[in-house]
């Protein structure tokens, strides 16, 4: 297949064959990462700008690493001002950066739709590295990649995502990447953080973690934002942990070979017990490793790479 996208804004309109194409490309990227010299010249002379309006060490580092492994020049630009009332508008900031002629702009922004908006006004390629509660497409793809590596398939698997569904962009991308490839998706969280409309995606909703985890093949635990407690989505972290924390007892309901994932950073002892985070069935660090390969694949394809691993 031929790659025609100029931007990766979200997975909502990705066709299954496009998702497979990225996965295939990521496989050859991962091969590069096993070499002694973990660098190829594919993006030499190209510039990737990481434009981050939200703190995110791991995603930014992952994109930075991915760009550098491909020999791109990578520049990081962080800003905490993202509001139109606080001076420069998003469009002005982005246009300033575009004037320096980057090839790819990787953007993280607290407002849903910010990358889509920029894509209508800028000429460079845009990669969404997380926009508000909308999507985090590279995470959706790396979760798929990680599961494929561990399980060999996603179709037919029971995949439970547990936590703050309402505010999670990871959920929305995972529903596209995993749901579209045939997984049986379960979403679980306190009712205040589990919008009922999400059942329209075909996912099963429950506020009972046992029901979600029972016979699951994959359990994705989401980070609970500690500040949510202040806005009374749930009574306390202690209560949250009791209802929605994954511990040995709950995990024992899952399939014997079930795996645990988490987009990070983990609140140990809150959503995930300390021992499970480090257990043999945890794929949390595999996700991080996959992340670099998947992001290399995205940058490579957007920069005009036509090769796939076929």
């Amino acid at each position, binding site marked *: 297949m031929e790659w025609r996208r100029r931007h990766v804004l979200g997975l*909502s309109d990705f066709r299954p064959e496009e998702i497979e194409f990225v996965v295939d490309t990521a496989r050859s990227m991962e091969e590069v990462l096993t070499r002694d010299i973990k660098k190829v010249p594919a993006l030499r002379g190209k510039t990737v700008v990481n434009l981050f309006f939200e703190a995110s060490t791991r995603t930014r580092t992952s994109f930075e690493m991915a760009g550098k492994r491909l020999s791109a020049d990578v520049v990081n630009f962080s800003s905490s001002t*993202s*509001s*139109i009332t606080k001076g420069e*508008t*998003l*469009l002005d900031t982005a246009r300033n950066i575009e004037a320096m002629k980057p090839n790819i702009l990787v953007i993280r*922004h607290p*407002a*849903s*739709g*910010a990358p*889509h*908006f920029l894509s209508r*006004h800028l000429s460079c390629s845009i990669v969404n590295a997380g*926009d*508000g*509660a*909308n*999507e985090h497409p590279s995470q959706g793809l790396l979760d798929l990649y990680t599961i494929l590596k561990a399980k060999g398939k996603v179709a037919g698997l029971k995949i439970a995502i547990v936590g703050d569904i309402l505010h999670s*962009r990871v959920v*929305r991308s995972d529903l596209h990447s995993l749901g579209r490839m045939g997984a049986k998706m379960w979403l679980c969280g306190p009712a205040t953080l589990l*919008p009922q*409309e*999400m059942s*329209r995606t075909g996912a099963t909703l429950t506020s009972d973690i046992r029901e979600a985890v029972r016979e699951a093949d994959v359990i994705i635990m989401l980070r609970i934002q500690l500040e949510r407690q202040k806005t009374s989505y749930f009574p306390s972290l202690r209560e949250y942990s009791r209802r929605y924390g994954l511990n040995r007892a709950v995990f024992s309901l899952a399939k014997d070979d079930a795996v645990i994932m988490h987009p990070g950073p983990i609140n140990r002892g809150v959503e995930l017990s300390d021992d499970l985070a480090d257990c043999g069935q945890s794929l949390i660090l595999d996700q991080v490793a996959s992340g670099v390969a998947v992001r290399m694949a995205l940058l490579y394809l957007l920069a005009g790479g036509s090769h796939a691993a076929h």
Partner: protein
Amino acid sequence: MLLIRGGRIVDPASRRDEVGHLVLEDGKVKEFLAGEAPGNFPGRVIAAEGMWVVPGLIDMHVHLREPGYEWKEDIRSGTLAAAAGGFTSVACMANTKPVNDHPEVTRFLLDKARREGAANVFPVAAVTRGLEGKEMTDFTELAEAGAVAFSDDGKPVASALLMRRAMEYARPFGYLIMTHSEDPELAEGGAANEGWTAQKLGIPGIPAAAEDVAIAREILLARQTGGRVHIQHVSTKMGVDLLRMAKRAGLAVTGETAPQYFTLTDAALEGYNTNAKMNPPLRGEEDRMAVLEGILDGTIDAVASDHAPHEDYVKRCEFVAAANGIIGLQTSLPLTLALLAGGKLSPSRVVDLLSYGPARLLSLRGKGTLSPGADADVTVIDPDREWEFRPEDVLSKSKNSPFLGWKLRGRAAVTICGERVRHATLPGVDIDG
């Protein structure tokens, strides 16, 4: 003297809907003539055959942005847009800078409108000083200066106690309190109707209950105080149901909606379309249908545009940061006329919603009717004219409309305000300077 000849005269106030001729003289309606048109009329003649001739339309909910935000709109541009849309009168909200919470501001608006306006301007004063929801404004002085009603539109009155006091205090004087009914806590942080579209786009939601709770509150307070209250821009199914219930209970509660709420749903937000962002937000299909039903069964008293001009750059940004509101003066009439299809709504009811109803609600003397002695505010409507709403047609200073590019049916052919022609698309009809 002016003769409007041969049109279908639709005047619900006098229960008239028949073909005839209307004579205007000395700024007033002189008489209605049936049968043959008078020959050798000693004045100007507008040939309105095939058109509707209706009392000048009244938009009881607009934001003219002056004083303080003249780059968005001012009295001149706003009233030109009004005239182009068939409106001879508009009621402008108080959320200007300074806020219209002082008689000097009210007088400024009226003076400016008298000098520069292409339509009548009826200022709505704030309920509370600075729209802060804390202290009532001086109702009497404001009313004496010309305010026709009181509303903190744009900033809902959070305090039930203050709302109670305002309704109760205003009751003996017959002042009208209008409300932007919204529970600010329930709505906090939201930017779109809470529902599937918001979930899909990852936009924080505003639940319908934020509006419903507040409408229920206003109704219960009207019941408690015996006061009168008008609910602005009703957008939810439960809001319509509550309004219907209040009317059945005989309470002095009225309500308006805007064309966007019976024309669009939150599906219009797809692609993060900031021109579909407003407050209250576009709702779901069930709500849209309920608003329509409320119009058809008379629960809703008026259609008002909530004309809210915004310059391009506060809409050209990320969705959650974008300003709320859309312009509406030039699309309100055709979007309401669209309800004629299927014969559910009569021409008379359209005129009721867009002219007679608002005139009654705001107690505008001489407006909303074509009976002899009424002000010579007349709109000639070409109900079948098909046209496309293009950016270059927009007379507002701002072009924030989700209806740009829409093919519309029906428009104002001539707008006459105080016997002066303020807008005309009819060949041979000149606009008075």
